[in-house]
């Protein structure tokens, strides 16, 4: 008996890819903060190997090391040996959730988070009260996690109901399915509206079903069983040739469905086929010549690389190219682009202090560019940056939509 059970243990062949070179260390947020080997991808992989090699159950040291991982995948970008750490940590987190008994308070906390966030129909009731949350943050100093939650609450969110079908303009380029998401739909409805608007303007017919709820990204990235959400998502969208996503975390998760179901005889092919159809909206747009004219927007914009877009999906050039093509936009690059802002899904809710340190660091780097606003393609990042940098944050689609319609974002 070892630390892992037989359901998707981190594959030894992937573990063996790691040659222990250490190139991942300077890019790992927890190693940058704490300098300890077990808080680096290289160390976490050693612990996975130990999990296979040693007889005996998982230990707290292993669980802490794996829990501390933000899942930002900066290590995947840095790794010269092609270690698929994203798959390794996903599998390992699942193992932890099944094998490790968390203390009661911890379990309740996680349950509360996952009872709320992936459920847009529940969040929409909370949404109107969200603006009240921020001012209460300063009274919550002794409750760091609640305080973080309060700080991150968006100040204002306009209810937007997307039409299920949106017709294309100009030369038609095909039909795409669009994922509305959970947090995105409730708190950033305007981003969804902007995205659909841009797709339509670029000739895509957009099908955005209301009924589909959640792709399971938050759960998947935290090790909680997301297979039901994944199956529902696949079933909902597999009739489309292309499935478009504007939230980095969601796109990354959906592209991983193939790996999630690799050992499932019924779903493995379907999942792999589905994953192959998923595109981040920037990827899709970059594959085609721009159609709708861009009106100028005079703005100095710092581009923030969302980890699940830049590292997990390796999409870095396309959003920059789309923004740079808008006349009047000056795009600036912050230092330490590869270092996560600290949001990392719900990591900042579970680890408020280090998340705040990382948030401050990202904020300093963004502010140092002298930009007046930040472009970020993920809702979690947008909230985290808004709190720590105090700069307006726009999704690139919002900027693009504004340019197409000739107004300010």
């Amino acid at each position, binding site marked *: 008996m070892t630390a892992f059970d037989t359901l998707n243990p981190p594959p030894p062949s992937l573990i063996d890819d790691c040659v222990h*070179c250490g190139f991942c260390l300077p890019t790992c947020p927890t190693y940058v903060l704490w300098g300890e080997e077990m808080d680096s991808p290289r160390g976490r992989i050693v612990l996975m190997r130990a999990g296979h090699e040693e007889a005996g159950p998982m230990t707290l040291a292993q669980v802490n090391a794996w829990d501390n991982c933000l899942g930002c995948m900066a290590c995947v970008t840095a790794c010269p040996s092609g270690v698929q750490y994203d798959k390794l940590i996903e599998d390992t987190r699942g193992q932890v959730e099944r094998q490790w008994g968390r203390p009661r308070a911890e379990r309740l906390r996680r349950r509360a988070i996952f009872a709320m966030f992936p459920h847009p129909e529940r969040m929409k009731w909370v949404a109107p009260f969200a603006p009240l949350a921020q001012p209460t943050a300063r009274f919550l100093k002794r409750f760091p996690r609640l305080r973080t939650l309060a700080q991150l609450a968006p100040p204002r969110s306009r209810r937007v109901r997307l039409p299920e079908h949106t017709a294309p303009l100009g030369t038609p380029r095909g039909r795409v399915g669009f994922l509305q998401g959970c947090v995105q739909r409730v708190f950033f409805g305007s981003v969804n509206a902007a995205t659909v608007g841009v797709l339509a303007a670029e000739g895509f017919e957009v099908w955005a079903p209301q009924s589909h709820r959640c792709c399971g990204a938050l759960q998947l990235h935290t090790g909680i069983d997301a297979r039901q959400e994944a199956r529902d998502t696949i079933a909902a969208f597999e009739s489309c040739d292309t499935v478009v996503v504007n939230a980095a975390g969601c796109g990354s998760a959906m592209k991983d469905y193939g790996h999630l179901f690799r050992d499932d005889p019924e779903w493995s092919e379907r999942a792999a086929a589905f994953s192959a159809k998923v595109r981040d909206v920037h990827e899709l747009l970059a594959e085609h010549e721009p159609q709708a004219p861009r009106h100028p927007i005079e703005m100095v914009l710092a581009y923030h690389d969302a980890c699940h877009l830049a590292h997990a999906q390796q999409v870095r050039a396309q959003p920059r190219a789309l923004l740079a093509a808008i006349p009047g936009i000056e795009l600036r690059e912050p230092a330490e682009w590869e270092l996560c802002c600290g949001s990392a899904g719900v990591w900042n809710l579970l680890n408020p202090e280090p998340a705040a340190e990382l948030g401050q660091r990202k904020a300093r780097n963004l502010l140092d560019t002298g930009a007046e606003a930040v472009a970020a393609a993920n809702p979690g990042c947008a909230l985290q940056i808004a709190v720590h940098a105090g700069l307006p944050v726009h999704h690139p689609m919002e900027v693009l939509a504004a340019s197409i319609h000739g107004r300010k974002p």
Partner: protein
Amino acid sequence: MDGGRQLIEALRRICGDANVVTEHHALRTYESDGLLQYAAVPRAAVLPGTGDEVAAVVRACHEAGVPWVARGSGSGLSGGALPIEDGILVVLSRLRRILEVDLANQRVVCEPGVTNIAISAAVGPSHFYPPDPSSQIVCSIGGNEAENSGGAHCFKYGFTTNYVCGLEVVLPDGSVMTLGGKELDLPGYDLCGVFVGSEGTLGVATKITVRVVPTPESVRTLVAFFDSPGHAGHAVSAIVSAGMVPGAIEMMDNLSIGASEQMAGAGWPLDAGAALLVELDGPQSECDARFDEVRALCEQAGSNEVRVARDDAERQVFWKMRKAAFPAMGRVSPHYYVQDSVIPRTALSTVLDRIAELASEYDLQVGNVFHAGDGNLHPLVCYDGHTEGEAERAEELAGQIVLACVEAGGSITGEHGVGVDKKRYMPKMFSEADLDAFQKLRCAFDPDGLANPGKVMPTPRLCGEVPGPYREHPLEKAGLAERF
């Protein structure tokens, strides 16, 4: 082991509970450095936060008679930071402050955990720190100093030892000494020069003062493809004979090109026998005058294609191909053994032929990445550790390659260090009298043998009293006794 527990408690008092690691799994993350072939779990790993804490830790180990090993980023390739099983691992990753940037005097003072690239970043763009090991984004200056690291640009610019001018070191008895300083040619012995490259066996540095130099005005990089490393070698000879010292000349063979291409995707031809990366740097007019000459020499030596980097982005891609070559081998082979031998550059063809011969004899693939300017060869012996006996065969082949290089007039290690990996080859390069002289030095610093024992010297030697006249005892001659 009560003495052990007392030591751990002392370490906790010095560094704080949170910075002393004793839990088994946590310790396992420190069991190897960049060489996975060697692993050992220490009794404890301690992460001091200041130079004073490092001195106190070393003193505590000295009082307890417990050996210790210092570790920087754990990216070394000779097992220099391999822990001693009953010993303490002193991890320096928290000592990562740059203490002073003195551009007026062209000096930087920093703590050992600072990464190599952070030093150049701190003095850029007007100045830079030249020794640039391929692992520079992660390797620590403390580790560089311990190994006397080189890098691709060392043919022109020199090695770590040519840039370290001052050290604050903790000797194995816990005393702190200042060696050298910002100034050069200070009177007395060149203790800085002796300490650099001593692989953590003479003490541990807690402050490092380095020289930095002006960034070259201009840099021009090309990659030339040849049918074979031999042809590329002729190009190198021609370039050097023409009186040029390029900033870097690096060679990669077909196997390593293929591996790197999978990672860096530079679009290099996969059927090329060898790629030669030549970089000229210096004053713009000098670079321009020489660059066309280099290009012509490559073509005359039979290059099929020469590509010039059009901008910095392309230059970075060329270098990515080279700098990630070792880890990229992980993509083409389940395991590999990286060697670090040096040969006189003129012996390249002969030695490469010999390596090809040996590889075929052992039925294993050997990739080659070569610092062509200074003769530093990195054969990468590929093997599958899951196949019975293959790991042993690979190790034997690696040893044969090292011997071939020494026989050609070279060295067993050009930049990675002896560590634990190459100690067995030391007697092939050095005589007993040579090793005895090394031991004299080691005993002067570490008479109790506590600093990184088991590294560098091939067999364990104790430091007795100060020795008398040298007379080789017949038993010693027969290799049966090791009197020191």
